[in-house]
């Protein structure tokens, strides 16, 4: 159980992490080589890369997407994420 928080909200409540579009991904592993936070993990078999540790992803960071030639990485909508964090903070204050 992680006690990491971001802006006062438990990290696991913030759905900010990359999603791999496997129709585009060519498993070049550039994102995995790039990310210093071990968000990705390589696998044997047909799907050679997965988002194994979404909770390691730095909220609002999208830097790995820039390394992706086939543009296979996407992130959540930022304004919606900010709104969610604001709401969770208010709920936290009330609780």
């Amino acid at each position, binding site marked *: 159980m992680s006690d990491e928080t*971001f802006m006062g909200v438990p990290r696991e409540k913030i759905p900010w992490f990359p999603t791999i579009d496997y129709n585009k991904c060519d498993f070049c592993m550039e994102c995995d080589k790039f990310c210093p936070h071990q968000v990705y993990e390589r696998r044997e078999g047909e799907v050679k890369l997965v988002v194994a540790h979404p909770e390691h992803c730095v909220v609002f960071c999208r830097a790995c997407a820039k390394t992706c030639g086939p543009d296979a990485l996407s992130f959540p909508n930022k304004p919606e994420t900010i709104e969610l964090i604001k709401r969770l903070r208010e709920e936290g204050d009330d609780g």
Partner: protein
Amino acid sequence: MAERFAVLPCNGLDKAVGPLAREIALMVVEACRGELICPVLYNNIPALYAKALKLPLIVIDGCGTRCASKLAAESAGGGLKVTRKLQATDAFKEMGESPGEGLTPDPERLALCRLLAERLLSAPDEGTALGSEAAFAEPVEYATVTHDKFIFRIPRQAYLFNENHCWARLAGNRARVGISDYMQQELGDLTFCELPEVGVEIGQFDAVGSVESVKAVSDIISPVSGRVVAVNPAVAETPEIINEDPYVRGWVAELELRDLEGDRALLLDGEAYLALVRQKAADYRP
């Protein structure tokens, strides 16, 4: 007669976006009767292009690896002065298009390249105005957090922080942004700093550039929203300035603020950021 430019493009041949960057470069050179700089040959024998580089320089990157920008920044004598720049992947994305997959551009994409080339020739130059210098020249009083042999400094006043370890220093309706002492020490010696374009609108928590060290690349996440009115060319030329003086000389961009009161709700003041760094420093492993 249009102004002449030297153009240093990405020459990536193994990704679809490389040949697009190359086509844009050829179109710009043709339209302004400028000089083309081959990045491969320039990397090997820079002296061959000494004459071409007397012209104002346009850099055209293909993908986010930004090889052409890096080549320009790492050139002898503190890097080349870049007058205008374009990154083809982002430019295509902004138009709602993709660079495709083929290594030979199709007619539709060539038309888009032509549009981008025309835009580059009519774009404003990269701004280097220093903005409200005096307001940002006030001395800074620091608090410190010590952990083993590491000392992290945090300005006590006039700065706001986000939890991405980036700061905004406020002066009137403007703010300068940069990275914190904690972040620069965590990254280690910086080798590259990418600046945003002057004039671009930045939302709160948007990337306002990036920094790269021998260890990692990191986006600079803007604590505040606003329009970029100036950038600090010194940190692009000499990124070590950010290591030496992250809070003053190491500023990255200056923004005209859009909604400071709205932004502030999600930011930390010096005292709160001090508490965060204290907590992080407790399990700090460089």
